[in-house]
């Protein structure tokens, strides 16, 4: 079950989506973003073969209608189904506007690691590498720290990176960063967060350019 921290991150990410646009949501916090969107022209794409993802109520669940996290979803009016090769043609070919992804780690140039942990049984790249090369804009939604309290925003990733491409924006429960010319810029503090707390929990170097009215 999603907790309030995850919901607050998803709510903030939803503000970045203004239609018309095609959006692919990753597993975890990214999936939560959809419920905060009330714009008919934000079209959700899922790489297992559906453009026009929407939520589904309990009684209409269909075991053969799922998102990339294998969770039950619905289809919108105007939705379409397609095979995996065509779906990834859409992604690599630059037809998806925004991808929202979760991460294990990020570095201070905006590169992410989210597909493997050396020595552990996490061996699932799925569509992450394709989304990073193909999506026009990539937004990361993640908790600021790992379960052990260590920062997920590192000087350098210790896990294998997913792509040489830097993401465009990072949203955590503490802060919003934009990535400009492979450097992190703190542009917003999340409600209740302080600059000192962000500095304390961020190993990566970043500059500060808080936007007007961001507080």
């Amino acid at each position, binding site marked *: 079950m999603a907790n309030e921290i995850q919901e607050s991150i998803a709510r903030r990410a939803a503000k970045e989506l203004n239609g018309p646009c095609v959006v692919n949501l990753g597993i975890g916090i990214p999936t939560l973003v959809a419920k905060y969107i009330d714009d008919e022209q934000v079209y959700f794409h*899922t790489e297992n073969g559906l453009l026009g993802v929407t939520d589904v109520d309990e009684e209409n669940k269909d075991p053969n209608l799922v998102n990339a996290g294998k969770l039950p979803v619905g289809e919108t009016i105007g939705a379409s189904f397609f095979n995996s090769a065509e779906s*990834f043609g859409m992604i690599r070919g630059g037809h998806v506007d925004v991808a929202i992804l979760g991460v294990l780690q990020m570095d201070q140039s905006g590169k992410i690691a989210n597909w493997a942990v050396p020595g552990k049984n996490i061996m699932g790249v799925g569509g992450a*590498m394709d989304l990073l090369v193909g999506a026009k804009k990539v937004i990361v939604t993640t908790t600021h720290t790992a379960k052990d309290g260590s920062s997920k925003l590192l000087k350098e990733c210790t896990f294998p990176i997913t792509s040489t491409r830097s993401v465009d924006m990072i949203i955590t429960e503490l802060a919003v960063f934009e990535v400009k010319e492979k450097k992190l810029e703190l542009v917003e503090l999340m409600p209740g967060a302080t600059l000192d707390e962000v500095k304390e929990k961020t190993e990566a170097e970043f500059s500060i350019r808080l936007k007007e009215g961001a507080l």
Partner: protein
Amino acid sequence: MTKLLPDGTSALEAVKTGDTIMVGGFGLIGAPLTLIDALTNKDVKDLTIISNNLGEKGKGLGILLGEKKIKKGIGSYFTSNRDVGDAYQRGEIELELLPQGTLSESIRAGGAGIGGYYTKTGVGTELAKNKEEREINGERYIFEQAIRANVALIRAWKADTLGNLVYYKTARNFNPVMATAADVVIAEVDEIVEPGELSPEEIVTPHLFVDGILLASKILTNEGVVSHG
């Protein structure tokens, strides 16, 4: 000659020890569960299985893994079945991890008579190791080889008796591309109809790709996998 197959055993006549087999599905969704069950019961081993996942723990291809019939798995997401990682750590199986778009495109290429292609996906990562790299229009690409199999086991919704196939919602996934990329292609379906009942406009897999059709007796429901028939 009819393409209709009476049971799972006859559907898998072509499968031999050491074969490379494509199996459709995204986890259990769109996976040919009846054919996977028949494969589990067949006396073959050292199989190379090409499928997005190796099933879930104790379900679908996960059962085949438990029977130690898989020598190598080629897929994009093995995290969904913890048994896969455990078997890998014990050195019982080989794994080849590919980005999902590369897996599906390599199969598409294999079915379309293409030897390989260049993609930006994976450039500069561990998955690009030992892969040829070249620059095209100022951007880095890596070479990926096409994939084919001896046998493809796929899942569709309806077939006509000629072997034309239509699919159901997100159970389509890898199935239509796998239908093109193996020497022998067997489709498991919910319903078999007469030619003419499927509109030519709606057919996704034309019959020339399909060698055999089997009526499904293991069905994925909201309550899990159910057997009938």
